[in-house]
């Protein structure tokens, strides 16, 4: 039925790349779901039901990974044999550390001020920095500089966390 050992790109039959056409990915995703979803196996035997459950869980996991820039980047490196673990997540570049602290300070200040214009601009700024970070990851990945690319993933994670805090505090 489905080979659980193939990677997510193989599963969706799309090229392994930093840029994925989200429309064709979604189309492939729906095709697979239509074939394997438990709704199609309501009257099937227990074994088939279980298999359908496992396969669709796998398809969902794959789709959610490829759809999300951060998760996709981590996964791309994983396929190349570079695990970006949760543990070793410290950024050692002093310059970025400074940048990180500055942004956090700015964030605290703006959150306290509650100035809606400033809040909006800050959100846009984080968004821009995150996108730059992603583009930089993509370039390094395409040049097969996986070690350097993994640094960008850690930076991306920082932007995502500040973004999440921002959303939580200002909703």
């Amino acid at each position, binding site marked *: 039925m489905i080979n659980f050992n193939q990677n997510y790109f193989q599963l969706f039959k799309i090229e392994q790349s930093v840029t994925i056409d989200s429309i064709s990915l*979604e*189309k492939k995703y*729906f095709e697979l*779901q*239509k074939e394997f*979803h*438990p*709704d*199609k196996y*309501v*009257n099937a035997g227990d074994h088939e039901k279980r298999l359908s*459950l*496992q396969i*669709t*869980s*796998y398809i*969902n*996991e794959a*789709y*959610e990974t490829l759809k999300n820039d951060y998760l996709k980047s981590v996964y791309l490196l994983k396929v190349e044999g570079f695990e970006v673990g949760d543990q070793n997540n410290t950024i050692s570049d002093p310059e970025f550390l400074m940048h990180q602290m500055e942004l956090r300070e700015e964030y605290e200040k703006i959150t306290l001020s509650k100035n809606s214009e400033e809040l909006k601009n800050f959100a846009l700024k984080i968004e821009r920095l995150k996108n730059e970070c992603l583009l930089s990851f993509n370039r390094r990945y395409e040049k097969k500089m996986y070690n350097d690319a993994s640094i960008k993933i850690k930076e991306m994670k920082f932007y995502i966390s500040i973004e999440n805090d921002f959303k939580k505090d200002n*909703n």
Partner: protein
Amino acid sequence: MALLQISEPGKSQNPHEKKLYIGIDLGTTNSLVSIMRNGSPFVLKNNQGNELFPSIVTYKQDSVNIGEPKPDGESITFRSIKRFIGKNIQDLKKEEFYSPCEYFEKNNIIRFKVFDNVLSPIQISSEILKNLKKITEKTLDGEISGCVITVPAYFDDAQRQATKDAATLSGLKVLRLLNEPTAAAIAYGLQSKKISKIMVYDLGGGTFDVSILDLNDGVYKVLSTGGNSTLGGDDFDKKIARYIEKKLNLNLNEEKKHELYLLAKEIKIMLTNDASVKVKLDKIGIKNKNISITQNEFNELIKDLIQKTLVISKQVLNDAKMKIDNIDEIILVGGSTRTPYIKFMIESYFKKKPLSDINPDNVVAMGASIQADILSGNSTDELLLLDVIPLSLGIETMGDLVEVIIPRNSTIPNSSSKEYTTFKDGQSAMSIHIVQGERDLASDCRSLANFTVKDIPPMLAGSARVNLEFQIDADGILNVSARETSTNKVTEVQVKPSYGISDSEIEKMLRDSFSNAKEDIEMRNLKESVVEAERVILSINSALKIDGKDLLNENEYNEICNARDNLIDNLQSNDRENILNSVKDLEKISETYISRRMNSSIQKIMKGKDIKEYK
């Protein structure tokens, strides 16, 4: 298996016979049943021509009744049992709740003392379903093969599990639990559109529920859901009642208060079509006095409540990462959406005229029956539903914190695994607490299950590995398995959240240690083989009774009887292999008999008929 084909001569099953599949909207105040007739959903009516079956269960000393009871002071009536399902007392205390009798908590669920019995909300809900089943089967003169039951989109794991258990208890086979908003969208047949984003606004008697659905090429996906389980049309009634009470400076006893409340409901319904109403107050014991209320007054009363629903709707829209103008359709569900002011507020807020052509009370049940038809294979519709989990699932970590394992709004089915390790040298057990919710502290979330992984081999801290796997099925129900992987010996234990029917069974499962898991599987296999064997014995006995003496000579007859008796003896052996072998022996010996039976039944059918009919 040959014996599977034994059937009464002339009574062979017609493979083309359509089985009966139904959709059930199991509501807080009312429940509905819908079936498919000639490809269209059709809502069943009761004797009085009413489509709404009250979700009211009344217990007397020795009987159970469904529907509005006559007050007699000696019965116990549950009016909105759905509010209690899958909940413990702590959950319930977060809301206002009323219990008609004494209650207590056992195994994390509330229990009611109903005369000499102790009943759970699952058992009480099952009475509602039993009644629906009975009425449906009587009306349609057939047995229900399966059903789709709708649940609010925000129902958590425990509530879904409990609903399914109630159905099982009532003898219904559940094909799927379906989210109410999704059912509504199906009823509107919006899948005929290629791509669209749909908001379902569902305001029932006691609950509010809003969901954003994404429809893409025949695939429905719930993008986000939210709601409030204590906000509904009943609150409108309360507002009107309080308004009258205050305006006329009334001081009513409980009984009269209830009458006033019912009167308020009438006023509300009348205000759907009339700009103002005037009613007599005789019913609440005030003679020769009228009260008139205008639609404007009513609108003012409920404005806050409606605003509340719009704020929630906006939040749910944000969760789906969408803006107001992304919405293509808004569907109105629930009797309360008949209120003109709601339509007006929604239209002005979302700048879109909501759909309300289908009876908002029926729409969910209708969608459920369409889905049941598709799942059963009766329909050829290519519709596929992709659902999401409404609340994050996680486990409690050190310091009462929650580590999210599967975030909310993840598409289901979904699975995820996490590895944990020991933090003390020689640690031999690990206690796991599974919670559901969005709060940071585990104690603020819904507790789903507690269990202990035992018999971890003594090792240095951080060396043992326990892998936890979460698997959510298409109904949104969770299964957790724990696996100790640091040694070669791998054991597994399945833990279902402890809200099932037989608590003692589940409790035992939770208590059972790691090492018992293998025995559990063997035990289950053994039980299955016994059930299978008993079925075979039963069918051979009934066949022999009918035509054994006619079709078999004495020798053959005895041989089959001996094989059967041998199997009966072996049933007690507790040896699965032994049982399976005896079943096989019996089947082998019966082969000739079975083929003779089939021939004879064919001859019986053909007898007296013109040969042309078989061409």
